[in-house]
């Protein structure tokens, strides 16, 4: 068995297939960060005065804040002056149709498997593609507009829908929420904005595709989703980056507002470049995601985290309204030297609020995978209900799996349950598969898929297949 194991361990990790660089001319802000950088970004985007003020306020707060150190992750200090905070593909004017996109860019997205053209014609998924700092194209805009749905880039929204932006931007993740969200508020360059009017059920999946391309840049995008009373939307997010030796910073913010009876489903397949086998390079993924639910509203986060050298991410739900529901489904995979500290926060404030957390962590190689979650039941959250389950699977004896669940209950009528297990892929399970002619590698993939199924089932169809493949790729060669 031992010999066999070493053979398997020798199996080379499959390459990160999204690691290419596209040669596009881009326009960049000078390296470093001070108020002039922010003014530069704001001016570039032709932003109104209030937006600049908002950014500057965030920046001044950020200066006073300290980088958090509590997460179970290690990385050398980040030099915030050595980052380019704005990078945009050059040939961009306002694009009316897809044909006007730089062909080089379009090829990039085709390589990534998101053919904007094809998406438009066939799959019925509206895509907003963001490369480096700016949104490149948004498909299906017109069809959506017929129903009153606004789906556009953040910079467009600031120009055309300032009243909505002023009302909701920063309402869920305040400027001063945390170190990385403050930084994002100061320098965010683009992102997606989505508004679903009352009573409208969005007829297609909305999707944003993020891509870091330029070297030395940080990507700071900001997504805002507002679902008016009684509306429904399902939103997808995907991300990739080229392979580079140095680490790149990605500090995004996602805000969701679900008003009475609205439902928002947010799915992420995160596949930033995880660094090479020696742990060199890769993306630092420091993301703040939070939604707020009003009466009878529902927010559901689903995430498949396979990339990034470091993930620091806690999609949360504030269950403010009575009878609101929050869900969190997560599969986090770490391999080689990746580190993930991820989980969720469920803040039960309203009566009869419910939340469900299913987290599956898979660690391999020399990676560390932590679940960190908070379930808070406030004094007035009568009859709140939470169920959390976090399971870890260890592949190999050099990796670590950790759980840090925080449970705070201040109400006697609430019921909160938390369960966690840690296990490995059993030799008997593998033997059983081998016996039936399934080789070890496939057997492990099979077992892992079964382990993650509960979460994968939550993903929209188009994503589920991609995510399953991704899972297999990320763990290739790590069977132990």
């Amino acid at each position: 068995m031992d010999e066999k194991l070493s053979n398997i361990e020798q199996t080379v990790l499959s390459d990160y297939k999204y690691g290419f660089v596209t040669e596009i001319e881009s326009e960049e802000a000078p390296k470093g960060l001070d108020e002039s950088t922010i003014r530069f970004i704001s001016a570039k985007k032709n932003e109104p005065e209030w937006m600049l003020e908002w950014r500057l306020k965030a920046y001044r707060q950020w200066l006073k804040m300290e980088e958090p150190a509590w997460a179970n992750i290690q990385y050398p200090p980040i030099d915030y002056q050595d980052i380019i905070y704005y990078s945009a593909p050059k040939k961009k004017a306002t694009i009316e149709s897809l044909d006007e996109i730089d062909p080089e860019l379009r090829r990039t997205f085709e390589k990534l498997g998101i053919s904007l053209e094809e998406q438009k014609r066939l799959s019925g998924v509206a895509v907003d593609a963001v490369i480096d700092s700016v949104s490149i194209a948004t498909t299906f805009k017109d069809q959506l507009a017929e129903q009153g749905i606004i789906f556009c880039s953040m910079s467009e929204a600031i120009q055309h829908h300032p009243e909505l932006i002023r009302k909701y931007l920063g309402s869920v993740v305040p400027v001063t929420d945390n170190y990385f969200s403050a930084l994002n508020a100061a320098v965010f360059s683009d992102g997606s904005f989505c508004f679903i009017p009352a009573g409208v059920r969005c007829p297609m999946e909305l999707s944003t595709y993020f891509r870091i391309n330029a070297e030395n840049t940080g990507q700071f995008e900001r997504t805002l989703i507002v679902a008016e009373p009684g509306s429904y939307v399902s939103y997808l997010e995907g991300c990739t980056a080229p392979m580079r030796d140095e680490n790149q910073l990605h500090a995004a913010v996602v805000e969701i507002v679900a008003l009475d009876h609205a439902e928002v489903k947010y799915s992420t397949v995160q596949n930033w470049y995880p660094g090479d086998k020696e742990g060199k390079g890769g993306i630092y993924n420091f993301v703040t995601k939070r939604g707020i639910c009003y009466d009878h509203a529902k927010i559901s986060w689903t995430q498949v985290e396979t990339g990034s050298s470091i993930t620091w991410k806690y999609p949360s739900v504030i269950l403010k309204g009575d009878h609101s529901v929050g869900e969190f489904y997560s599969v986090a995979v770490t391999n080689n030297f990746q580190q993930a500290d991820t989980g969720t926060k469920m803040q039960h404030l309203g009566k009869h609020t419910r939340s469900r957390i299913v987290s599956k962590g898979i660690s391999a190689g020399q990676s560390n995978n932590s679940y960190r979650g908070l379930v808070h039941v406030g004094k007035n959250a009568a009859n709140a209900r939470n169920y959390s389950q976090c399971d870890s699977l260890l592949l190999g004896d050099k990796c670590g799996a950790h759980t840090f669940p925080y449970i705070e209950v201040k109400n006697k009528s609430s019921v909160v349950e938390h369960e966690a297990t840690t296990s490995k892929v059993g030799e008997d399970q593998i033997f059983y598969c081998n016996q039936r002619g399934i080789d070890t590698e496939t057997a492990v993939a099979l077992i892992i898929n079964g382990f993650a199924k509960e979460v994968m089932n939550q993903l929209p169809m188009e994503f589920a297949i991609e995510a399953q493949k991704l899972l297999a790729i990320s763990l290739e060669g790590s069977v132990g």
Partner: protein
Amino acid sequence: MNQTDYLKARFEQLQQEEPGGNLAAVRSKAFSAFERMGIPTVRNEEWKYTRISGLFNKEYTLAADIAALSSNDLTTYQLPAHEEANVLVFVNGIFAEQHSVIRSAGISIQLLELAAKNEYAPIVAAHFDHSSSYVNDGINALNTALLHGGIFVHVAKNKVIEHPVYIYHISDARNTPVLAQPRSLVYLSENTQLQLAETYITIGGSGSFTNQVMEVVVEKDAQLSYYKIQNDSADASQVNTTHIRQTGTSVVNVVTISLNGGIVRNNLHAVMEASHAEAHLYGLYFQQGNSHIDNHTVVDNVVPHCQSNELYKGILDNNATGVFNGKIFVRKDAQKTNAFQSNKNVLLSDAASVNTKPQLEIYADDVKCSHGCTVGSLDEEGLFYLQSRGIPYKAAIALLLQGFAMDILEKIRLEPIRAYVTELIAQRLTAESI
């Protein structure tokens, strides 16, 4: 003079009075650690839910006159069957030999300061202050820095100590608020058995703060049962560190019963350094009024093939707050570890709250580890069932709670102590159901 200056003066005085020996160096180191870290605040992750800094606004007296206490004062507080037990008494944190009784052969007790100089010096040197590598805060360091009147308990090889050892911690707060800092090191040699029962009593109404550190070393084939009963008055607070090292294949059974007190913080560590060692940690907390109970446990699996079980159950009423933080570490080579942990809470009032954090940190792959925790109120169906059979609502609640507590109570294998604790809980439940 503020409290820190007072403690500093006291430290310098102690260093002068009892210089030399290898403890002096440990103490100086601890004192500088205390000066550096101070009293932990809620900014310290380990103290996130427990605020003790307020306790230090009081002007405590350290090591107050212990002669004032007569043996008559003690009789009221005796645990049942004390006639059959070895009795160790600490008064205001200092070992009081005149009140103590040793009945069993094979057990020897002496001051720690002494043991550090005589034939036990190697043991003391190897194990004293081992806990500081697990609790990195000023409060633990303070105990070490101001070590005075601590004891060393040695159980000789191949001895089964038939009579249990009862440890009483008396704080004589009749005149002034008392800061008691009991310290002990218990050593179980190979092939021994020891049963410990420990309780805390504050006399008088000026309030007390007990900062206890107890270190236990359990060698090969030894068995330790340790029962801690915390049922002190509402103005008696404590921080309690029990650090158990299983240096040999051994079995440890700890039951912590917390029924009353001001702010009570228990650190319980089981460090499993030998294969096939077993640790069973149980706890029951039943708190009322404004009391605060905080149980922090650490099970550290250093070597393969160890097994640990942990079950903590809590009932919180009125404005009581409960905290549970259970850590299980599985080190890199500790394969085949089985570690289980569970924390169950019942809230009886809307003003009561609980914060629980069951935590796993695992660095080995061939392990079975699980943890779970629940918070809820009593089972409606169970209540209805009992009521439908003519049991009044309140009596039904008492019955269910008794059943809830039973899981832990039955782990107390020292019969008189179990009966005593069961009675305490029954009394409280009767009082509740009226």
